[in-house]
């Protein structure tokens, strides 16, 4: 077991001016499950491959435990990796695939056998040990790839989108299996995915990357409740958070027909920088349907903002309303979650009020979080 430290690790691909990974700094605790997430091209896979030793590190350092592994070859790093396409050796049986690393390391046959059988038992692969990968289903291949990593008992597991080749149902199932397995083995794990649901459900902590820059590292809960900037706010959560640009008013931020409380100093700081607007974020589930009792700024209109329903997605337990609303003179797309039993019809007008304490305010120019 070991900690993993990215210390200002940077990767610049030859022929490119912009670093693919720029001064990445993450400390991963012993036994932690860290998920690297971000849109494609954000440098998450590159970061993982740098840790694996499959990619050069141009600047900074990477440490596993106390060892500086920045320029060590992959085999000396004591890591195991699960690839997106599994990269099983097609000419070997499942057992040989899983035992290959041990065989190379010169472990005696009897021990290889016991360790492979043990791992196979954990992963429910015992009856497939004699088969070749081509005779396995996608889910089974995925488990063999996992098994190959487990058998080695490495200090760190690296997983590069291991679930993206599975179908939706199997993905959800395997997701919990991998997370459960990691908790049981207690091995430090770095997991790369582009799927924010995987990131939120599996990780102890989540690191969001964009354009090679680390945006935020935090627990899934905090990531959801207190996104550090506009990008994280829009990226984490599905459907995405509603982000609406509104003008700054005296004493706070006016959102539709209600006032969103914001830290005065933060707003003042934003205004000082020349911002006339800020961006307010509200998650779809943090809109309350106004029934006329909520506090309104003007007596004539109902509270909150009027959303004209365009599309309704019914998911059974609840529904998502995709609509448009006029906010400070502009048409904005708004998503609102409603109860599964009371979905509005297309064309209806809903009056929604953001729930107090569940709004997020970001600087429009820098994207930084302004509210607490």
């Amino acid at each position: 077991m070991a900690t993993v430290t990215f210390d200002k690790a940077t990767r610049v691909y030859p022929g490119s001016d912009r670093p693919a990974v720029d001064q990445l700094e993450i400390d991963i605790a012993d036994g932690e499950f860290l998920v690297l997430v971000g849109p494609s091209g954000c440098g998450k896979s590159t970061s993982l491959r740098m840790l694996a030793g499959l990619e050069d590190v141009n600047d900074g350092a990477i440490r596993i435990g106390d060892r500086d592994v920045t320029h060590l070859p992959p085999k000396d790093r004591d890591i195991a990796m699960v690839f997106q396409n599994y990269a099983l050796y097609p000419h070997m049986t499942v057992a040989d695939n899983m035992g290959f690393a041990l065989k190379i390391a010169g472990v005696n046959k009897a021990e290889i056998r016991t360790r492979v059988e043990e791992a196979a038992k954990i992963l429910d692969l015992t009856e497939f040990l004699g088969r070749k990968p081509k005779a396995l289903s996608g889910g089974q291949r995925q488990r063999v790839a996992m098994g190959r990593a487990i058998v080695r008992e490495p200090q760190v597991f690296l997983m590069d989108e291991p679930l993206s080749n599975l179908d939706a149902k199997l993905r959800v199932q395997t997701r919990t299996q991998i997370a459960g397995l990691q908790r049981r083995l207690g091995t430090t794990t770095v997991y790369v995915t582009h799927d924010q649901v995987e990131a939120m459900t599996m990780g102890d902590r989540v690191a969001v990357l964009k354009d090679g820059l680390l945006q935020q590292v935090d627990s899934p809960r905090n990531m959801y409740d207190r996104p550090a900037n506009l990008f994280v706010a829009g990226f984490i959560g599905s459907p995405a958070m509603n982000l609406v640009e509104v003008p700054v008013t005296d004493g706070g931020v006016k959102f539709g027909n209600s006032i969103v409380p914001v830290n005065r100093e933060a707003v003042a700081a934003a205004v000082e920088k020349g911002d006339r607007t800020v961006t307010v974020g509200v998650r779809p589930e943090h809109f309350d349907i106004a029934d006329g009792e909520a506090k309104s700024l003007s007596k004539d209109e109902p509270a909150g903002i009027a959303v004209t329903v365009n599309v309704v997605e019914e998911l059974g337990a609840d529904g998502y309303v995709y609509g448009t609303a006029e906010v400070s003179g502009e048409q904005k797309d708004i998503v609102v979650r409603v109860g599964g039993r009371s979905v509005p019809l297309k064309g209806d007008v809903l009056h929604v009020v953001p729930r107090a304490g569940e709004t997020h305010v970001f600087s429009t120019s820098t994207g930084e979080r302004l509210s607490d």
Partner: protein
Amino acid sequence: MRHRKYPFIVGFLFVPVVLYTVLMVWPYIQTFGYSLTDWSGESQTMHFVGLKNYTTLFGDTVFREALLHNVLLLVFLPVITILLALFFAFMLNVGGRGTTGGVQGVRGSGFYRVVFFFPQVLSVAILAVLFEAVYRSDSGGLLNGILVKIGLENPQNPIEWLNDPGTVLWCLLAIVVWQGVGFYLVLFSAAMQSIPREVFEAALLDGAGRGQTFFRVTMPLLWDSVQTAWVYLAIAAMDFFALVSTLTPGTAYGGGPDYHSEVLSTYLMRNFLFYGKSGYACAMGVVILLITLVVSVFALRVTRRERIEF
């Protein structure tokens, strides 16, 4: 509609099948017919002699020597060429390894790839001219010149590469290997590039060094291509006609000194056109056909393995 399909297919197949039969199959049958006669090749008079040509053939020491040479080539040509080509292909594609940076070829691999392919574009006639200069038996030859210069050879008594019974066959083998490696290098490179990169990366992470990766991962995954290469090279090893007849000493189609570079095809041609023993030559041709057939089937059978899917 099913019954209408077959006339349609047969219509298309008819012409190629007839052409194939007339131009390919019939000559084989004809050759076998001639091999049972004492045909001299210059007249149409011939007498049926039964299997006499075949019995003579097995007592013919020159034929046996030629056969032995072909068998030697059959063993060494594929083995040497394939191993060299595999090694170079591996180095060019995945062999280069610094400390980190994943899987890549050695430095300058794009350049080597082109250079290795050069010999393949030379025709056999050019090869013969080229290697006549290389193997020249005085210090003007490339090989002898170098050996004399570095003092390994007495300039008064240079090695006569193509006139020495001990070296002539191996010199010819070297030419074909030199020419062929580039082509098989490209063949194996292409096959290697169809293997997902991650497989090599997985091997790297599993701790396999270059040698282990080569023998335990690359080789088994290239087996299909190796098998194909083996069949091509085996057929090439049964030939060698052009090089032997142009480069080696001996009356009509070379084969010297004293039959030490004789191969089946040159001996056949000499019998057919020079000695006027065409019926005998046809019997030889039939035997060569059978040997080639057996070798090909054997190569395909023995090397057959499960198909590999990625």
